[in-house]
Structure formats: structure tokens, C-alpha cells
């Protein structure tokens, strides 16, 4: 069948399967229908729930403003899909174009979208991770279980990892008057995502709000009582913190194990795809019928030297899903690239934190507006003489302006004056990111792969 005829047929009566029934999966399904896909659509998800929203789980839910079981995502339109919920995909046969399911069933596809996201990394020592009172926070069930414990007036909550999720949990605990200790291996909270200059502001904010913040320490062990309930955490500086709730916030692992030996270019870093969301096979050849979107995807981005960019960001999941869906049912010239400028928000201790671009690439930072001391500012990150990212604390209205600067590779340091620029913001200072070889809680933005601008790279062929 000629390509154009195939596409016509696909749009009319083809079979599209989406694995991962969450934010990216739902948005892709809606886009397919909105663009006229009339064939059969199957949504496969291992959680027993229809797509729900995760960001409120560490914010509105723990603050008691929303129920963990009622964060379902609204629909932009009826998607008329076959839902296979509560059953995981366990394998992929790319030749036969089939997805294998945990219940033994197989589903055939003409086009497949993989949107299996990530899962919380558990506490590495299994026996300790299984103690009663030890939690992670990724799913609705996690949030419901944690919330129950928080409502039972614990003496103290111990959070491991001061990234966004850990800091948001600490914030919610303080807002409810619960004592909380937050332990971080790096020098400050949020340091892996935003660097030490901003990390210092976050540290001050947390301490002022009564968080017992411990930085530069590792948790060495969790101790249980005779009933198997957690009772204390041991730290590398020799201290012991008594606690009855531990929340492990050590970042996430990509859900790609089910693709092992499928021949797809999938691994612990995610699934590599081209800018049009088409997955690569393990030989680096682009597939024509397998697409990826959301937290599980990694794709090249020209703004960041064509390195593979993977983002654990809500907005990215939405935008990438829309592009993937569009491309799945479009021919060559009509396809669109996913060239989204990364953007992220967090809300903690009543402060609205937002970022655009990739701060962790920043070598230097200057406070372009406002001041760190007032905790109301915009920090701009520079990389090799251009603007690469910006972060705002309670200053969101300016962020769009800085997004333009990133898109147009505006020179850094900023040569023009800005509204509300203070003396401290006239000179850039080192952004102070930790050595990437010393992991903190795990970044939510990762750049990986070959960068054409990086001349230090040496290719060492494997020996035979």
C-alpha cells in the first residue's frame, strides 16, 4: 500500500495502542481523536485508575485541600477508547506489532505510543524499605497512605532527599504543624535542580519555617521496632533521629524494564526518540510505528546542543504527547518536532517557584530582578556566554520574558538593565551546582548523549 493510502486507512480504521494511561497517554488520546483518528484506540495502564494528576499529590492533597482519590484529569473531549486498566504491559514484539499483557493477553497495533513514565526509587535496603511507616510518593495510593499517617499526628516525619518532592512534603508537614526533619546529601535543598545560590535561599526558607534541615549528610540506616514499625533514622554524621514516618524522595526510575529484549532503544535513562517522538531501536535506527512521550522519553533538543533531554515535567508530558499523537497519524511533511522549552513549577512554604530552560546547565547566575533576601526574584543562568535558563521565586509574571531570551540565545551576562535590578545582581556569580558524579536526590532534568559542541569527547571503541 502506498504510504499516503496507508495513512488514510490508518486514520479511518487503524489500531492505535497507548501503554501508560496517565497524563501523557490521555493527552495523546485526546489529540488523536481531535485530529480525526476514527480507528480503534486501546489504553493500557497498570494502575487501576483512569488518568489522574500527580502534582497535587504533594501539594493540595497533603495540605488537606483535595482528596488523594479525586485528582482525576478532566477530558477535553470523549476519547472512545478500550480501557485495559490494572494490567501491565510486559513485553513488546515489534515484528508482529504486538504488546503482551500481564494477564496473558496480546494486543495488536498499527501504531504504538509508549508513555510509561517513571516510578519512585525506593529506599535501597529492602528490609528497611518494608518497615511500616516508610513511604514513597508517586501514585494516588502512595498519597492516600501517607496522608493517613500524617493525619494520625506523628511525632516527627523524616524526609530523605530535598529535591522538589521532598521539599514540598516538608512544607506540607510544617503547614499542618507536624515536626519534620529533612536530610539531604548535597549542600542545600533543590541544589541539583537549581544550584547552590538558589539552594541557600531554599535552605533559609525551610529553616525559618521550622524544618530541621540536615545537609551534607547521608542516611545510613532506618531502624525498626519489634513490631516492624520504623522508629529512627541513622545519619552519616553519627546522629540518630527518632521518627515514626519516613518519606523516601530519592528521585525516579524509568519504566522501561518491560521493553527489555524487545529491540527498542530503551534502558535506565529512558527511551530514545527523534524530535518527532519516533522511538529508536537498539541500533539507533528510527522506528516508524513506535512513539514515545512524557517522563519516559529522551529526545534531542537543538537549544541544548542536540543532547538527549529527558524531563520529569508536567508541561513536557502534555506537549510531547500532543506532538507524538499528531505525528502518529501524519505524513512526513506534516509532522512537527517537539522543541519545547522546559518549564516547571513548584510550590512550597507559600512561595511560588518556577523555572524555564535547563538551570542545571548553567555555569553562572545573576539575579536580574528582585533580591534573594526578599525571596522575590528572577535568577538568570548563563552557559557559554548565553542565557540558558531562569528561575523565579514569587515573580512568575516575568518568566515568559526570559523564556524568549533562552529561545533566542541572548548573550549572558545580560547587557541591558532590567526593572528592579539591585547592586547584587549586576555581576554574575558561579551557579554552584554540585559535581554531577556525586548524586543528590536525583535531578528531574537530565541531559545525556553526544553533544556536537563538546570537543573534549573521545570515542573509545569497544574491544573485541
Amino acid at each position: 500500500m502506498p504510504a499516503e493510502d496507508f495513512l488514510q486507512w490508518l486514520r479511518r480504521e487503524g489500531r492505535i495502542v497507548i501503554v501508560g494511561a496517565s497524563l501523557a497517554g490521555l493527552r495523546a488520546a485526546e489529540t488523536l481523536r481531535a485530529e480525526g483518528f476514527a480507528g480503534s484506540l486501546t489504553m493500557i495502564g497498570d494502575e487501576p485508575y483512569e488518568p489522574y494528576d500527580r502534582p497535587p499529590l504533594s501539594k493540595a492533597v497533603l495540605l488537606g485541600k483535595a482528596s488523594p482519590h479525586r485528582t482525576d484529569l478532566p477530558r477535553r473531549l470523549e476519547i472512545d477508547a478500550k480501557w485495559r486498566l490494572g494490567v501491565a504491559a510486559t513485553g513488546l514484539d515489534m515484528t508482529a506489532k504486538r504488546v503482551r499483557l500481564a494477564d496473558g493477553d496480546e494486543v495488536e497495533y498499527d501504531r504504538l505510543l509508549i508513555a510509561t513514565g517513571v516510578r519512585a526509587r525506593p529506599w535501597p535496603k529492602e528490609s528497611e524499605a518494608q518497615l511500616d511507616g516508610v513511604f514513597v510518593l508517586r501514585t494516588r495510593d502512595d498519597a492516600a497512605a501517607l496522608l493517613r499517617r500524617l493525619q494520625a499526628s506523628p511525632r516527627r516525619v523524616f524526609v530523605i532527599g530535598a529535591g522538589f518532592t521532598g521539599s514540598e512534603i516538608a512544607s506540607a508537614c510544617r503547614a499542618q504543624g507536624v515536626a519534620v526533619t529533612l536530610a539531604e546529601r548535597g549542600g542545600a535543598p533543590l541544589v541539583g535542580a537549581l544550584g547552590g545560590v538558589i539552594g541557600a535561599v531554599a535552605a533559609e526558607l525551610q529553616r525559618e519555617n521550622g524544618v530541621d534541615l540536615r545537609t551534607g549528610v547521608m542516611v545510613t540506616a532506618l531502624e525498626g521496632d519489634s513490631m516492624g514499625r520504623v522508629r529512627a533514622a541513622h545519619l552519616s554524621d553519627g546522629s540518630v533521629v527518632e521518627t515514626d514516618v519516613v518519606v523516601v524522595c530519592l528521585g525516579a526510575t524509568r519504566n522501561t524494564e518491560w521493553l527489555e529484549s524487545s529491540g527498542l532503544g530503551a534502558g535506565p535513562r529512558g527511551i530514545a526518540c527523534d524530535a518527532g517522538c519516533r522511538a529508536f531501536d537498539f541500533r539507533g535506527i528510527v522506528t516508524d510505528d513506535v512513539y514515545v512521550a512524557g517522563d519516559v522519553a529522551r529526545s534531542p533538543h537543538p537549544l541544548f546542543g542536540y543532547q538527549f533531554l529527558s524531563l520529569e515535567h508536567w508541561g513536557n508530558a502534555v506537549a510531547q504527547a500532543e506532538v507524538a499523537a499528531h505525528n502518529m497519524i501524519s505524513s512526513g511533511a506534516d509532522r512537527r518536532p517537539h522543541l519545547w522549552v522546559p518549564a516547571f513549577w513548584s510550590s512550597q512554604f507559600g512561595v511560588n517557584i518556577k523555572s524555564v530552560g535547563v538551570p542545571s546547565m548553567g555555569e553562572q547566575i545573576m539575579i536580574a530582578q528582585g533580591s534573594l533576601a526578599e525571596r522575590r526574584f528572577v535568577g538568570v543562568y548563563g552557559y557559554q556566554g548565553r542565557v540558558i535558563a531562569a528561575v523565579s521565586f514569587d515573580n512568575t509574571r516575568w518568566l515568559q520574558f526570559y523564556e524568549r531570551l533562552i529561545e533566542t540565545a541572548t548573550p549572558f551576562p545580560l547587557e541591558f538593565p532590567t526593572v528592579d535590578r539591585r547592586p547584587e545582581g549586576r555581576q554574575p556569580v558561579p551557579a554552584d551546582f554540585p559535581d554531577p558524579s556525586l548524586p543528590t536526590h536525583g535531578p528531574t532534568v537530565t541531559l545525556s548523549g553526544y553533544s556536537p559542541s563538546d570537543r573534549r569527547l573521545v570515542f573509545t571503541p569497544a574491544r573485541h
Partner: protein
Amino acid sequence: MRLVVDLNRCQGYAQCAFLAPDVFALHGEESLVYNPQAEEGQRERLARAVAACPVQAILADGLDDVDEEPAEAGQETSHAR
């Protein structure tokens, strides 16, 4: 009624918190918190908030049977940039 706010887009103008205070609230200076499952009794207020958000950041369903265009405004909300 299910709703979600694209908080990348939200500028903290608080228009929604003014029109539907039982659904939306500001936490601090400009952080928006909201209840993603609004009570049935909030239908009309929610529809007004959806329509009034200056950056069209609120997406809600189940508003179809409210008069005027607010539901349509919600549908146009595309999170693509």
C-alpha cells in the same frame, strides 16, 4: 467536576480565587492551590473562573450544560506552546 490548572501558564492573577473562592485559593503571594474535584454546587462559579482566567490556564469538564461560552473557553485551552 474535574479540573486541572496548567500552572506553567498560570500567572497568579487570582481572578479564579476571586470568582470561585471555594475551589481556588492563593497560598502565599502567588502560589495557586485548588481542589481538582469541585463540588457540584460550584458549577456556575467554576465556569466563570474558567472563562475569566486571563491566560486560559484552567481546564474543566462537566461544564457543558452551563449557559454562555465558558465551557467552550475551557475546551480551547491548549497546553501546547
